[in-house]
């Protein structure tokens, strides 16, 4: 990696969310509204700080700051490189919207929820800015435990059970990951840093050793990234968590696992070594299985958030599949999908939240005619859902296009079949929702002549603005980012820089 300049901004970005925590502590319980606004300001300021780095990052600069070190080779260091910055931008943006949304959505124990939200944001940014695996692991583990209170926030039996499951999976995964890092440190000659072309090589360690490292990493991060046999906690955690938390879970926290795998593939092993070890075959097949099977599972779910959760499982594996292609377009599509999926799934989960708040309905079968009651929300929902299927012009289409092109570059058109199957299945489980919402209505709109009428479209009475605005913003971005992806700060502008280096 090139020389990095010292800068406190990454540290500032990681520390700023804690200001919200201070706000909660500093102001009395009575000043509830003031506290909430301060929390929002905290997340806004964080986003602003992250954004301020954009010009420099686009110029190819990297910024670094050392936090602490155990010994020479084991240090906690924050570095802003293009890839990390890209992730941080997604995190900060989605988090800001989720905070706005939560201000209206969360109706009890605000303090706990917002405190842990802020903490998790800090840890996520720490993950994004980590300069080496050691730092990444530290922030990753803290984020794991920090997100537990978000999942069980409702404190229902279901939430508790989901939280328990989450912890079991997360602790087991953390342990495996820990082992992976020790093995990495041991066989990587004490090198835990991220290199542009990977740091491990067959010079220092045997094939079997590197395979061990890779698969323990894959298993460790795979739990968060919900690769198929390890996905068990996801479908329980999402419906149990409050909607903004589910949006963050799907949009960002699952991605922390995926981002870890990206780091492992790009910066620890490097494309050449992966090709040499032939581990990408396993990765790709796991991803393909996950994409198809998760979509099939999604079909069978009636609970909306559960269906969305299964959809997330499948979608995150797009990223893994893109990486496993080991081709320029594949990697580009996979990594860009990280942001794309965050936008789409964030929007969908927030819509589900609006539905829940306004009508109390959780199951799709109960949602007949809901599009008339909540037109804006459901339009946004439809936009995001169509994008998920890969309809142009939207971010979903960009992903699918790039992945398809990547599989041709890799010379494995079989992936296209998987992608098409997935698109088909996506359509099969999203279109019925749109259909039910807009084109089927319950029979209670019967007039005095005994005739059934369309329910009336009611605009302007949807819900609190704090709920609707984030939904609309996300839906708009799903389209805008899909069309102008090269605008500075949008995924293509950042990701292409990284991928062009690795796959020239």
């Amino acid at each position, binding site marked *: 990696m090139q020389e990095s300049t010292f800068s406190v901004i990454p540290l500032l970005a990681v520390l700023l969310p804690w200001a919200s925590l201070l706000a909660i502590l500093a102001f009395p319980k009575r000043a509830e509204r003031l506290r909430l606004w301060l929390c929002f300001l905290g997340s806004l300021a964080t986003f602003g700080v992250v954004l301020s780095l954009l010009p420099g990052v686009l110029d190819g600069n990297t910024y670094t700051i050392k*936090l602490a070190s155990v010994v020479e080779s084991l240090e906690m260091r924050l570095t802003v490189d293009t890839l990390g910055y890209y992730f941080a931008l997604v995190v900060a943006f989605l988090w800001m919207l989720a905070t706005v949304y939560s201000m209206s959505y969360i109706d009890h124990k605000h303090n706990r929820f917002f405190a842990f939200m802020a903490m998790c944001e800090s840890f996520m940014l720490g993950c994004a800015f980590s300069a080496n695996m050691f730092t990444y692991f*530290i*922030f990753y583990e803290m984020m794991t435990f920090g997100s537990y*209170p978000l999942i069980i926030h409702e*404190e229902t039996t279901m939430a508790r059970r989901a939280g328990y499951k989450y912890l079991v999976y997360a*602790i087991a995964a953390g*342990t495996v990951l*820990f082992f992976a890092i*020790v093995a990495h440190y041991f066989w990587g000659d004490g090198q835990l840093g991220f290199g542009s072309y990977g740091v491990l090589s067959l010079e220092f360690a045997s094939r079997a050793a590197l395979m061990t490292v890779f698969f323990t990493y894959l298993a460790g991060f795979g739990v968060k990234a919900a690769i198929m046999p390890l996905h068990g906690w996801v479908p329980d955690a999402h419906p149990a968590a409050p909607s903004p938390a589910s949006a963050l879970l799907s949009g960002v926290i699952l991605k922390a696992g995926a981002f870890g795998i990206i780091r492992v593939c790009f910066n620890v092993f490097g494309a050449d070594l992966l090709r040499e070890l032939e581990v990408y075959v396993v990765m790709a097949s796991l991803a393909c299985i996950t994409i198809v099977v998760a979509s099939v599972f999604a079909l069978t779910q009636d609970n909306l958030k559960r269906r969305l959760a299964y959809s997330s499982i499948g979608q995150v594996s797009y990223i893994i599949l893109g990486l496993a292609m080991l081709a320029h377009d594949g990697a580009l599509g996979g990594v860009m999908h990280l942001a794309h999926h965050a936008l789409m799934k964030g929007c969908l989960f927030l819509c589900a939240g609006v539905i829940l708040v306004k009508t109390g309905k959780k199951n799709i079968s109960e949602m007949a005619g809901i599009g008339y009651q909540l037109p804006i929300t459901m339009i946004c929902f439809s936009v995001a859902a169509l994008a998920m299927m890969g309809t142009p012009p939207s971010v979903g289409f960009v992903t699918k296009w790039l992945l398809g092109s990547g599989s041709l570059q890799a010379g494995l058109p079989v992936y296209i079949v998987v992608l098409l199957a997935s698109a088909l299945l996506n359509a099969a489980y999203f279109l019925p929702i749109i259909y039910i919402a807009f084109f089927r209505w319950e029979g209670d709109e019967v007039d005095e002549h005994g005739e059934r009428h369309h329910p009336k479209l009611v605009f302007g009475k949807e819900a609190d603005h704090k709920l609707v605005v984030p939904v609309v913003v996300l839906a708009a971005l799903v389209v805008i980012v899909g069309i102008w992806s090269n605008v500075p700060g949008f995924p293509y502008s950042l990701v292409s820089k990284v991928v062009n280096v690795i796959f020239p």
Partner: protein
Amino acid sequence: MGAWRHFPIFMITLPLLGAVLLPFLGYARERWVPYAALLPLGTSTLLGLLLMGRIPADGFLSYHLGGWEPPFGIEIRLDYVGLFLMLVVCGITFLALVYSRRYIGKEVSGGQRTAYYVLYLLLSGAMLGFVATGDIFNLFVFMEILALSSYALVAITGNRNPVRAAFKYILMGAPSSIMVLLAVGFLYSATGTLNMADLARRIAESGYTEVLIVSYILLVVGFGVKAALFPLHMWLPDAHSIAPSPISALLSGLLVEVCAFALVRITFSVFTLRSSDLVMGTADAVGVAAVAAVLYGGIMAILQKDLKMMIAYSTVSHVGYIFLGITAFTAEGLTGAMYHMLDHGLAKACLFLCAGNFIYLKGYRRIEDLKGAWSQMPWTCFAFALASLSVIGIPPTAGFISKWYLILGNVKGGKWLYAVVLLAGSILAAVYCLRVIYYMFFQAGKEGAWEESWRDAPPAMLAPVWTLSLATLFFGIFSSLLIPSLLKAAAYLL
């Protein structure tokens, strides 16, 4: 050579002197005893800190008592690792003593309070002397003081259960002391010397292999009992859970570790090892016992209903960690073991003191009683949670750093299985710690379990608890203060 040369002996004798003088104060002004007791320990801590920069990581300070050169007189031989542990001892005993005033004021009846502080200072001074000494018979002498005072401290309330637990402790402890004494005698008969450094030289030349083998085994078993290594741990859960909480903190957080450290000394400084098969054989056995300890302690801790009992079993498990670090025979492993002594000491002391807060305020001992405790005792609960994270080994607490080095050390030593066991141990730790945290924070308490008024423990009890829990965080983040020197010192020991 300046006056600092004398600091180690001051650190040891000041608490002992304090112990002898306290009874006088006890007769005159009993109320002042808890404050006066702080004085010697505080001074010792200060002296230790002043000494910190003076001892190089790859050297030692040798102090000849009475001016007699080593094999003839007694030597205090303080290396970096020893000083490190002495500071841990000083710091934790000081904090637990601050805590004691309120707690003991309630638990122990008037006449015995002075005796409590006397024994407390004796125990602290003995641990310091035990760590610092370079003479194997002297090691035994200090072990006797610390064993005797800890028996009495366990039983101090004089009620039926504590006395029974203390008796159990004595039943295991006294034979172990005798084993150590026998081993020291055997070693003397085979070498004619008691000084550790001299012993190391003469053991290498000695022809009495059988005597040496048996004395090593006896030492391992003897110190193993005091350090509660797995099959010899039976006394620990009772004694540690029934003793007054500050004493539990001391026993679990320090005594056990100090005794494990004695084994480090014996293994690395006396039986200069790796050459002889006997030590390696015993070390393998110790490794197996440690594996069993990690798993058994963890599982038993999960099964407990009593909070302090759970913490005590967790100690059994963590002793296994320390021994796994020692038996790795790598600098990293030994560093991990030493750092684990620090962070386990801090975290365990903190957990026991938190448990003490619950007992002090509400008399709650069972884990189930803690449901919803957060709403009324937030400070205690948060400190508990933080210390638990260190026990589990979650970054960025100190527990993570020590776990890192323990595992790395075992991996470097080629002991992959042990590394996996360590990981399994931390999963078990997660299960038993998170259960308590879950009850505290995420469950509603029973009706009337927590009165409405917001009342946490008094500041005099919270201050030490929070110092300890923040220290686990501090030493996690700023581990670079100690780790490089410890690595160097460990390499020097090996």
